[in-house]
């Protein structure tokens, strides 16, 4: 330390590591620090002993569960959409070379008291048991409309301006029933509640198109992919990108204290008696608690099991979305499962997660509709964590704070926050359609 940087990044969560990587590639001089001795912050993956220490307060896990190192338990379980923003960020930066991915086996929704596979194409809709025969025809027409919709081609708009027509109005035009609306809105468009029904339909249609494109991208049985060894690989991969382009890394730096001048503008960070100077700070909420406000809590359960989630066709990796209306709640509940197939557990073991925006103080009771879907579990942990968003003005203090991760099982909101922060920090828009390595090859 005792050096000058343009940007100091605090916390090695996924958002912070993506930003560190992007800024270093831009030629920005970056110092990246974390109080922990591992990468990932709140979005890390823990081995079994780390999991036991965090949730049971014990140093060692029981022997019968297998080797600690064989476990990579995500603290923020999410799948990646095959054609989503995170995949495009990975390709843009060529970070895919540090990672291996596998398609997720299944995407399901809990509707009418049953776990059912999510159809996303006209053909799938016709096969689905989610709907009766006449509803299938109506849904098939709706899916065809969405598939063919092109923002720039009025012939595909069927006489509607989707920036004005609401989702409710669009769906009414096709005569879909309540259960169909539920699974389309929550399991295909991935909305977290029903507020979207009263909003212009454009966003929902684009989300449905993303789902279908993601499904087609890797010819999988679901639109999602997931890295081998768990999500803790992602922050490390982006951190390596930053390091390769000159970023400096310091893990295990306790008490990173942000220093300000008389005008309230950031000037540096002090840790262990040394101060590094900088012009800007990028951090997760925990490093600047006075500049964030609480926006809610997430209730979550983490379970170790010896079988797939029942009724998912023996899927080794699966998402089940429980729409809010099915539970008379304000927000959806998410069930996520991965296993030894993705090298996140020893052979024969599965890791399941249930999460939702907390509406009570009792995670065990609140999550019961999700945990009931799991079947017998070997071990289960319950937890609540707070979510924060920044309330500072970055143009005044040069502090850029990320928003806490939400309960959803996909990364679209995460990357949207990153891209927005990147623009605030640099004044530039990131063009994810450009492959950086191809661009630099063209320059040579």
């Amino acid at each position, binding site marked *: 330390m005792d050096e000058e940087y343009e940007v100091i990044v605090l916390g090695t969560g996924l958002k912070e590591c993506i930003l560190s990587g992007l800024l270093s590639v831009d030629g920005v001089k970056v110092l990246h620090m974390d109080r922990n001795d591992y990468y990932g912050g709140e979005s890390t993956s823990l081995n079994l002993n780390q999991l036991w220490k965090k949730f049971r307060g014990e140093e060692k896990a029981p022997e019968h569960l297998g080797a600690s*190192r064989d476990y990579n338990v995500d603290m923020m379980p999410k799948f990646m959409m095959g054609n989503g923003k995170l995949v495009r960020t990975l390709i843009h930066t060529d970070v895919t070379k540090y990672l291996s*991915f596998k*398609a997720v086996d299944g995407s399901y929704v809990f509707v009418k008291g049953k776990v059912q596979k999510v159809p996303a194409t006209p053909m799938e809709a016709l096969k689905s048991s989610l709907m009766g025969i006449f509803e299938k025809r109506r849904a098939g027409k709706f899916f065809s409309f969405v598939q063919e919709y092109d923002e720039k081609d009025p012939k595909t708009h069927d006489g509607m301006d989707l920036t004005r027509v609401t989702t409710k109005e669009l769906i009414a035009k096709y005569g879909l029933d309540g259960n169909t609306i539920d699974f389309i809105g929550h399991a295909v468009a991935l909305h977290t509640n029903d507020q979207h029904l009263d909003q212009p339909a454009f966003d929902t249609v684009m989300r449905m198109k993303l789902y279908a494109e993601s499904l087609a991208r890797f010819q999988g049985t679901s639109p999602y992919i997931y890295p081998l060894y768990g999500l803790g690989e992602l922050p490390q991969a982006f951190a*390596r990108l930053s390091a390769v*382009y000159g970023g*400096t*890394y*310091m893990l295990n730096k306790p008490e990173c204290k942000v220093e300000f001048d008389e005008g309230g503008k950031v000037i540096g960070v002090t840790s262990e008696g040394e101060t590094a100077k900088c012009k800007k700070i990028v951090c997760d909420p925990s490093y600047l608690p006075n500049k964030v406000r609480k926006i809610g809590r997430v209730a979550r359960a983490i379970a170790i099991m010896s079988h797939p989630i029942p009724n998912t066709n023996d899927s080794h990796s699966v998402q089940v979305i429980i729409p809010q209306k099915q539970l008379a709640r304000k927000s959806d509940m998410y069930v996520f499962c991965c296993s030894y197939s*993705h090298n996140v557990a020893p052979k024969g073991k599965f890791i399941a997660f249930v999460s939702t925006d907390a509406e009570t103080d009792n995670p065990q009771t609140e999550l019961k509709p999700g945990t009931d879907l799991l079947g017998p579990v070997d071990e289960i942990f319950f937890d609540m964590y707070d979510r924060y968003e920044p309330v500072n003005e970055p143009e005044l203090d040069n502090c850029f704070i990320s928003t806490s991760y939400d309960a959803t099982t996909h990364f679209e909101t995460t990357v949207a926050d990153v891209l927005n922060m990147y623009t605030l920090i640099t004044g530039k828009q990131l063009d994810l359609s450009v492959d950086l390595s191809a661009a630099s090859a063209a320059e040579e």
Partner: protein
Amino acid sequence: MSSRRRVLLKVIILGDSGVGKTSLMNQFVNRKFSNQYKATIGADFLTKEVQIDDRIFTLQIWDTAGQERFQSLGVAFYRGADCCVLVYDVNVMKSFDNLNNWREEFLIQASPSDPENFPFVVLGNKTDVDGGKSRVVSEKKAKAWCASKGNIPYFETSAKEGFNVDAAFECITKNAFKNEPEEEPYLPDTIDVAGGQQQRSTGCEC
């Protein structure tokens, strides 16, 4: 196309900042040396095919990218390594003393299934400096340490002059291959994220 089995081996290079890890890698793979020292920027991993007898190996050699400077390598860097190369500078005693720390750090982070027999190779680099006059770590001392840690193979090298670099990496390749599991490990059906929109090909491209 050759029908001989091709083997991919992951090799990682550890050691203090400034001992010449990146230069060794560049000398071996690219036959290049740069006198300009900067704490590593731009080094990532490089691959090189090595033929020993009638077998072809693809070495994937991982540099630390500078993250070792403040002990900030992640567990992903260590995962799946087939051989660990420990490098010190023969002109800097501290870099030799730290080999013990680097070896122990590797064993903790990588958690190999057979830690007693995991293949390490030690390189004493920069033997060319001042024609050998500024040397502070004797060959005898280094060999004694290697012997005490399970007879680790030892090479004295100069990345600048290319001295002993090929011999070292041939030994690294052989030891890495010995460590390769006999049975095919469980290989999940991974997908090519960086590929285009095309469907994944199941056929051979040749």
